């Protein structure tokens, strides 16, 4: 499934932790506080637990959305949009 993570986190430490946790779990950074990528149910649960531990429930907001490929295809992307093949794991090889 395709997962979106969006957040507003006040504390610098917690915010850094969450951004790294997102990257480590295989999501791609599409905007400063917005991540997107493909993960399975286990990976999603793990990420949720990690984030839950560090945020402040009174001040911070974190949204985790779930989407399927069809829905992603229907999205409008304007300007410098992300690489939709990369976030859906369709790219099988990368060259450097």
């Amino acid at each position, binding site marked *: 499934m395709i997962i979106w993570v969006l957040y507003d986190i006040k504390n610098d430490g917690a915010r850094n932790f969450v951004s790294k946790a997102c*990257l*480590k*779990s*295989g*999501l791609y950074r599409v905007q400063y506080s917005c991540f997107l990528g493909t993960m399975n149910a286990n990976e999603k649960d793990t990420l949720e637990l990690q984030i839950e531990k560090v945020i402040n429930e009174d001040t911070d907001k974190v949204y985790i959305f779930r989407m399927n490929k069809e829905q992603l295809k229907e999205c409008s992307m304007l300007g410098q949009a992300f690489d939709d093949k990369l976030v859906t*794991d369709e790219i099988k*090889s*990368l*060259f*450097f």
Partner: protein
Amino acid sequence: MQIFINTYGTYLHVKDEMFEIKIREDKTKPVKINHIAAHKITSFVISKGAALSTDAIALALKHNIDIVIVENNGHPMGRFWHSKLGSTSKIRKKQLEASLNQEGLKWVKNWLSQKLENQADFLQDLKKHRKKLHQELNNAIENILEYRQKIQQKKAENVNDIAESFRGWEGSAGRQYFDALSKCMPNDFTFKGRSFRPAQDEFNAMLNYGYGILYSRTERALMLAGLDPYIGFMHRDDYNSKSLVFDYIESYRIHAERFIFRLFTGKKINKSYFDTFKAGISLNEDGKAFLLDLF
């Protein structure tokens, strides 16, 4: 996802438990940094001028990611592996035994028959849209299947006794097969038989690289199965020769052949994918990227 590193001066290391790939394409431009989560990667294929940190190797081993160092033509030179061979040594003892008895002969016969059968099937498919070449293709198919029959009917104590004639038949079948393939190619890209080190034409250059990738995948599959890639059944036990990989790959070569042939007949091949030099032709960076992206 497979990561291919071909740019000179690329540095692969670890940051925050993720792989970080740093490239500086040009001294005037800032270094490009890419982060990739470890579990998204299945293998690194590194060709030249890259630096690799031990942490990166350790992280790759931990996640069962294959790190292969390849020559320019895609053939694997070496890979990082755990300090243990997979599976139990019982498997490798049995493998040694099989390489010397009837069991090994049975496997070799199967592999080679399968290979020739694949070749014949492919030519059979090609007949569909090539009315003019029916006669020639039929001849080639008939001959290849004849060699197949010879191989299957040959009896011997062990593989060594008949390896020479097997190699001969396999080679003759191969010549028939590639001749037939060449006749089906677009006029710009016909070729004269197989050539390597260096390739003499575009088709061979691409095929050599495709086989190279196939070697690497075959070797990995054999090692994961706990087999010793150096103990082959038919190919000679030359010094440092991965005989089992050569034996085992035979029936899978068709995948590279069919795929690359389609690229040529589908007019997907651009002359700019190749570099020509005195002795032959080689696939360049653009060509490699093009091939690997689809393969």
